[in-house]
């Protein structure tokens, strides 16, 4: 099989080719290792040296004894995996895009990564991200911004921008990301690929360097819906090392639906009007028309508190972050500022020098929201708004099966365009944050182009509805026939036609 043929395969197709004896795992790994090593988009912060020792060990004492796939069974056949930097990988740099963790080599591997390795997906590389997953453009990385393979002058979205861009550019068959308020779905949308945020608790958070623990969730970034199902199937399940992880009811099914007959799709007026770019809305409406042709019942639905989700999120997530990031103090791991006069001075200087501007801003915002005198006005109120948002979804799912929105308000924007005004950057998450606060699963699939750039369609369902969600996404994906090929990055540029 030629290099170009190998790269053209989805993960599921590559696994099938290996099963059929048409391709060896070594050939596949080498083809992607060469591409990842020649990455010109800054997607990777680390690339495996060779295939032989790339899979993180899954048998050490410290690895969770969770019910992962049995060793030996290798359903993923050696299809290599790119992993967001914030997942701890034993002996492999895990820096969460931060100077304060530069060169950090964890002593254990995250459960999600270990399970995928056990299922036969070796580690190809670690992908660049916004520092501690705080951002929507991957411009907040201490290791430089990631560029969008559709247009290198534009951002790939964030915070899982390295994972999304690497998948879109064909530098990896698929990638692992995390989503706190949209960090899988929005970059998937901006890069023209598929991204799924599972139900909160479906996937163990053990070994993920924490941002906001009540929201963080790992999920797949893939070229198509089938690959997303295949990866998720090997990630879910309860983990003794994460007390918030849940036993997943049943197995994630591979999608096969061709029609959407009788499927009720709810369009929330609150997330499909003001603030969404005209070209994005046009693409979204065209996708809804296709859904109707497939038999879907598309109707309006109300999420009356959704417009307040972003405000609540930007209290809750920074509050949790300010607590989680207290651990970075220059004592046990990571960087330490030199020349401190005493212990407190060492803490404050290490944290100033080690954290980037956006992380400092969110720590300050979160600390403020939790501080005496402001706790009730900010954190307490935001928690109550969260209740209302979750109740809105609960009510809506009494009327419809899924909720559909554009994933992001705009297509990929230029580097530097939104870095001066934090709130303009935060608005990227307008359509994705409500689902995060409600803990429900949501997928983004590419639904067309606007200005020559990909537009994402978000489909959200009730807790644990992933298999049905993937089926609906699959039917739409087949009908939309999106050509997922960006102009080839690293091949001297090109045009999108």
């Amino acid at each position: 099989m030629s290099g170009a043929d190998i790269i053209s395969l989805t993960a599921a197709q590559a696994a099938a080719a290996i099963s059929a004896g048409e391709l060896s795992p070594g050939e596949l790994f080498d083809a992607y290792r060469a591409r990842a090593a020649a990455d010109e988009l800054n997607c990777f912060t680390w690339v495996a040296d060779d295939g032989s020792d790339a899979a993180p060990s899954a048998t050490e004492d410290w690895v969770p004894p969770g019910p992962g796939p049995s060793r030996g069974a290798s359903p993923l056949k050696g299809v290599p995996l790119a992993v967001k930097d914030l997942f701890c990988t034993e002996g492999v740099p895990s820096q969460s895009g931060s100077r304060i963790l530069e060169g950090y080599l964890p002593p254990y591997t995250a459960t999600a990564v270990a399970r995928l390795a056990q299922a036969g997906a070796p580690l190809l590389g670690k992908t660049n991200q916004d520092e501690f997953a705080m951002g929507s453009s991957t411009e907040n990385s201490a290791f430089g911004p990631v560029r969008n393979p559709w247009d290198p002058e534009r951002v790939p979205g964030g915070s899982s921008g390295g994972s999304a861009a690497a998948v879109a550019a064909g530098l990896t068959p698929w990638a692992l990301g995390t989503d706190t308020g949209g960090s899988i779905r929005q970059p998937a949308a901006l890069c023209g690929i598929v991204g799924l945020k599972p139900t909160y608790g479906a996937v163990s958070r053990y070994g993920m360097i924490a941002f906001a623990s009540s929201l963080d969730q790992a999920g797949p970034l893939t070229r198509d819906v089938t690959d997303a199902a295949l990866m998720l199937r090997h990630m879910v399940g309860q983990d003794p090392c994460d007390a918030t992880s849940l036993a997943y009811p049943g197995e994630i099914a591979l999608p096969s639906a061709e029609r959407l007959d009788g499927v009720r799709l709810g369009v929330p007026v609150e997330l499909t009007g003001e603030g969404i770019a005209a070209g994005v809305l046009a693409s979204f409406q065209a996708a809804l028309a296709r859904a109707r042709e497939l038999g879907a019942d598309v109707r309006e639905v109300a999420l009356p508190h959704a417009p307040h989700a972003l405000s609540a999120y930007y209290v809750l997530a920074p509050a949790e972050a300010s607590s989680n990031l207290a651990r970075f103090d220059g004592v046990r791991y990571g960087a330490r500022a030199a020349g401190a006069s005493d212990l407190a001075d060492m803490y404050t200087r290490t944290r100033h020098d080690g954290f980037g501007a956006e992380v400092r801003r969110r720590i300050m915002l979160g600390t403020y929201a939790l501080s005496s005198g402001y706790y009730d006005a900010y954190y307490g109120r935001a928690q109550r708004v969260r209740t209302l948002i979750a109740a809105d979804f609960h009510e809506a799912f009494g009327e419809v099966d899924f909720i559909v929105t554009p994933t992001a308000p705009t297509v990929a924007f230029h580097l530097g365009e939104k870095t001066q005004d934090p709130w303009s950057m935060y608005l990227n998450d307008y359509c994705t944050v409500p689902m995060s606060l409600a803990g429900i699963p949501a997928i983004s699939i590419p639904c067309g182009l606007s200005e020559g750039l990909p537009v994402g369609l978000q489909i959200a369902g009730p807790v644990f509805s992933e298999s049905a969600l993937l089926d609906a996404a699959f039917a739409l994906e087949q009908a939309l026939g999106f050509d997922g090929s960006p102009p080839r990055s690293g091949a001297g540029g090109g045009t999108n036609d």
Partner: protein
Amino acid sequence: MIDRDEVLHVARLARLSLSDAEVESMAVELSAVLDHIAKIGELDLGDVAPTAHVVEATGGLRPDEPRASLPREVALAQAPAVSSDGFLVPSPQA
């Protein structure tokens, strides 16, 4: 909305040193973000219970059985400074 003194107070709570210029810009940026967040103040939330976790998780505790922990040398391996068998830090009273 948030002034220089408040920024310095919060930075102290967060164990974060900021230069004078950073204090100024932080006050402006935080105020702008808080202006947007303040919209949740318009909602009537009197009877609404707070939500800390959306998905009900029970029985998430493993059996309390002793097992191997991280070996000391592994735990110390990534530290910026160690002394014999512990983490080395500057004196609190230096």
